[in-house]
């Protein structure tokens, strides 16, 4: 029995019982005992294994693929490449109208647009045989000169709109700058960074009863199914994608070459085929965060009130895709100024295609902007928190729209109290602990909050239990558990009576685990369906054997939302220790105080926020993919060469929040997945400045850079006075 109701924005009328209480993950036991099966773990009869072959040139053409010898190797059943692979479309509109990742068009022609481009797939009976075949496949190339040399100084950079406009501006920048008593004009750079979740990308495809079944590790099953149907020109509804457990996504787990190659091979061979990326392959196939070169110009009155906020960012994209890292967008939310200009440009290079990586734009952009604010505070002789509070806007700086809950001030005030900020001596390089110089820093954080139309079904069973079905994804966030809480409260039953089924495109369209908007979007769909079901049950209807199901679609309700500036906020605090003799930087403690909407599950929300802050440590001190300009490849493309923070780098981290229910949201959710990253690197860089007197405008803050007292790399705002301290001995 089924009926459909439009979602409504009715507020919760009774006090919730589960919302806001700490609950462990419903699948936690399965995960820690190894019982949870990830895509690559699921056994299938007559499964074949595909191993990808990647290009070893950075630009050119494939001249020949000598597959005869490989076809004769033990266990090899197929070799797919551009001369024999099935045709796919790569020109369809994917989510939010964006073009799909260009590796969807793998094996379609002889062009090689970058190092590590997929050129062939070797399919064999075992993964080892497939890998041996892939290693042995000889591909001849006609190499062309390539260009992978990213720099913000490049004259071929061009403006590019992304999900937000490339440029927004108001006021007369030069006039306001001339009228400013205090000016900061500096360049900041962030390196190429890779998400590389613990579980590599993997997909298994097979045909069953005329339908394509795909087991995959992704951030949205219905999105993946829709894209695969478009790529292979299949009827919608003939592709089913399941993705029950996902070992991390961070923006990287969309439709990429692994699903495409698995479907191609399964179609050709008419048997199940699994394709998994190796760790090294992920560095060119899974997307990454572009390096950025940003210039920030701030002009202010002596009291710190901004006259000018000008933030320009240059990032890179590949020659086969137009992706922009919108690093200048943070200023559109955080601060107002009479002259306000934010812009994004890209340089097209012979590099793998960048993509959204946790807190896209905001992570690198907040490093630049919040470092510049710190520089401005110092020049104004103002406390960095006071400077920010003096520049709190009353409405969207460019939109003029009202803020739907802006609690940044509360974050700073409560954060400062807990961190002990009031006791801080603002003078740099005055606190010591043995060989370590100590310093503290702070930064503001913001991230957009939104919800996207989704569908859900909630079923009541005669035994008093309920099942929620929604094509949500739990990429390690605790989403399944959060949705159980949301549904249980809407049904006014104990969470234990609610089973949540996710990760199946059969459940209908739903937003993905992305944009920090998963839980909010899914809750918008689940809440009215569960509420309607509860009301029906209250009337005493009989529950049939196949259950009583109510479906919902939040499209109409979300379309009715009033325009507003909807964002989460945060105040990041860090204390660092720096050994000026060795260049070592250690983060001793961090505090993040957030205003991120109603917190559904404090346990998993804190996990998300702390995880984001750990990302901030990695971003500030460790992460950096080094591209070899000569070959166009990465050097050390593995987790030994690409450093993220180790346990020993993460000392005491505390994340907490102020009360901040989102107006207009049925539950008050904003989202916690990404804001923990935002501002964290700036807080650490500002603390390093406070500890050492040296401003680091280039991430990561490596020992060699600290040792050389490097402050800026070729930017226009070189402060030679701050470049000192080389060769300082630790007993100085």
């Amino acid at each position, binding site marked *: 029995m089924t009926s459909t109701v439009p979602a409504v924005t009715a507020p919760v009328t009774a006090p919730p019982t589960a919302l806001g209480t700490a609950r462990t993950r419903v699948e936690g036991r399965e995960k820690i005992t190894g019982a949870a099966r990830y895509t690559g773990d699921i056994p299938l009869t007559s499964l074949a294994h595909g191993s990808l072959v990647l290009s070893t040139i950075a630009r050119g053409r494939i001249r020949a693929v000598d597959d005869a010898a490989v076809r004769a190797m033990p266990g090899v059943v197929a070799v797919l490449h551009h001369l024999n692979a099935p045709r796919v479309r790569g020109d369809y509109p994917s989510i939010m109208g964006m073009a799909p990742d260009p590796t969807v068009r793998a094996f379609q022609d002889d062009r090689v647009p970058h190092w590590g481009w997929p050129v062939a797939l070797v399919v064999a009976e075992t993964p080892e045989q497939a890998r041996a075949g892939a290693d042995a496949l000889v591909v001849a190339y006609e190499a062309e000169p390539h260009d992978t040399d990213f720099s913000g100084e490049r004259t071929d950079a061009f403006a590019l709109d992304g999900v937000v406009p490339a440029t927004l501006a108001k006021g007369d920048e030069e006039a306001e700058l001339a009228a400013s008593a205090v000016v900061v004009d500096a360049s900041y750079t962030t390196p190429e960074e890779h998400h590389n979740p613990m579980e590599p990308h993997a997909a298994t495809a097979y045909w069953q009863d005329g339908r394509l079944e795909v087991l995959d590790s992704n951030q949205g099953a219905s999105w993946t199914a829709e894209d695969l149907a478009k790529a292979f020109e299949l009827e919608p509804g003939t592709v089913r994608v399941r993705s029950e457990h996902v070992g991390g996504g961070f923006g990287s787990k969309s439709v990429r070459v692994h699903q495409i190659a698995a479907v191609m091979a399964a179609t050709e061979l008419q048997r199940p085929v699994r394709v998994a990326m190796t760790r090294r392959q992920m560095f060119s196939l899974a997307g990454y965060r572009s390096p950025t070169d940003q210039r920030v110009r701030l002009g202010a009155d002596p009291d710190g009130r901004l006259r000018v906020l000008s933030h320009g960012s240059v990032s890179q994209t590949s020659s086969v895709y137009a992706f922009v890292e919108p690093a200048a967008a943070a200023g559109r939310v955080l601060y107002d100024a009479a002259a306000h200009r934010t812009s994004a440009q890209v340089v097209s290079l012979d590099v793998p295609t960048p993509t959204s990586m946790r807190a896209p734009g905001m992570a690198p952009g907040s490093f630049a902007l919040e470092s510049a604010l710190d520089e401005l505070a110092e020049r104004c002789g103002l406390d960095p928190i006071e400077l920010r509070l003096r520049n709190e806007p009353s409405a969207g700086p460019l939109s003029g729209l009202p803020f739907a809950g802006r609690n940044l001030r509360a974050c700073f005030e409560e954060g400062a109290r807990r961190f002990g900020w009031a006791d801080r001596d603002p003078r740099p390089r005055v606190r010591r602990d043995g060989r370590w110089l100590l310093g503290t820093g702070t930064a503001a954080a913001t991230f957009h909050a939104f919800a996207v139309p989704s569908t859900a079904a909630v079923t009541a069973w005669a035994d008093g239990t309920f099942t929620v079905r929604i094509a949500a994804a739990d990429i390690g966030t605790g989403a399944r558990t959060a949705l159980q809480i949301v549904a249980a409260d809407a049904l006014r039953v104990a969470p234990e009576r609610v089973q949540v089924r996710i990760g199946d495109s059969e459940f209908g369209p739903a937003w993905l685990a992305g944009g920090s908007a998963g839980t909010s979007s899914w809750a918008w769909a689940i809440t009215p369906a569960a509420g309607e079901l509860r009301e029906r049950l209250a009337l005493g209807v009989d529950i049939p054997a196949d259950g009583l199901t109510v479906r919902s679609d939040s499209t109409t309700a979300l379309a009715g939302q009033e325009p507003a500036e909807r964002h989460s906020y945060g105040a990041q605090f860090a204390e660092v220790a720096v050994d000026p003799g060795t260049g070592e930087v250690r983060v001793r403690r961090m505090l993040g105080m957030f205003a991120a909407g109603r917190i559904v599950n404090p346990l998993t929300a804190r996990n998300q926020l702390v995880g984001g802050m750990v990302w901030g440590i990695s971003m500030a001190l460790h992460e950096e993919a080094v591209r*070899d300009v*000569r070959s166009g490849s990465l050097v*050390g493309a593995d987790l030994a060469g690409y450093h993220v923070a180790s346990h020993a780098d993460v000392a005491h981290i505390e994340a907490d929040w102020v009360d901040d229910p989102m107006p207009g949201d049925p539950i008050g959710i904003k989202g916690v997945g990404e804001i923990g990253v935002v501002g964290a690197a700036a807080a650490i860089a500002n603390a390093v400045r406070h500890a050492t007197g040296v401003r680091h405008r280039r991430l990561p803050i490596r*020992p060699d850079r600290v040792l050389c007292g490097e402050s800026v790399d070729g930017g226009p705002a070189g402060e030679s006075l701050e470049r000192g301290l080389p060769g300082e*001995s*630790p007993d100085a």
Partner: protein
Amino acid sequence: MKEFAYRRAADVAGAVALLDADPGARFLGGGTNLVDLMKAGVESPERLIDIRELPLDGIGRTEEGGLQIGATVTNSDLAAHPEVRRRYPALTQAVLAGASGQLRNMATVGGNLLQRTRCGYFTDITQPCNKREPGSGCPAVEGEHRNAAVLGASHHCVAVHPSDMGVALAAYDAVVSYQTAEGAGELALSDFYLPVGDTPHRETALPSGALITAVTLPPAPVRSRYRKVRERASYAFAIGSVAAALEVRDGVVREVRLAYGAVASRPWRARTAEAVLRGAPADAGSFAAAADAELAAASPLTGNAYKVTLLRNLTIAVLTELAELAEPAGPTGHDQEGSAR
């Protein structure tokens, strides 16, 4: 990874005979480096001869008062051994500064000495590398070389030896014992690694087919220290490290051992610095002068010149710390733990 055969050796003679009969074979200790290299296609042995069961896992005193360490002693056992901790503390510190607990439980002393560089060009078979493919070139000289050598390198190869343990062993004048089908032999650690020159693919002076059986440490000054600097707090290779041992009497350096890690193709024994220090006042001025004398030979590239500053600072810091420990109560202070003096 290429398919390979596997044999477990029962005794030293058997292990050596197996390798002698099969030039395509390699000994397998903990496998913490070799297996990774096999997965990456850098190494592709036809056969692995597992030596973990050999009776080479003991640590015992030598007649002259030193310590003999079996080649298959794991890093964990070595670091935890009471005699090592008491008499060769820099060795324990060096071992514990490396890898992770899990890796140290597998990795062996012999294997540690024979591990290969972690240079990103060496481990990527799609790149040229003179060490992996003689004559193909060294892209690190013009490319990414932040962690490349500043001492003893050549334009053919600027890779560094990644070992922490080896740096302490170099400072302690370790001697490596080995066995071949022809018989037993010994190499001082200072002669164990070959100069880079134009043959970076030839890394050690071990005769072909040799199995390392033990590492022997002569008596050494007890006041010793290993300090490692890396780009994160743990689980990373050094970008510079110092192993030092120091004896001070009446404010004068009586004996000193100094070795550097992550600056050369081998653990770098700083004999020039040692010569400057012997008989010199045990103060920061001497330590700086000694480091400067040693590092005068450095020829850094554009991206790794910081290492010279780093090693200078580390030398001063570690020796200062040892000098303060050696004479905490003034010129008559003495070793509180008892020592091998």
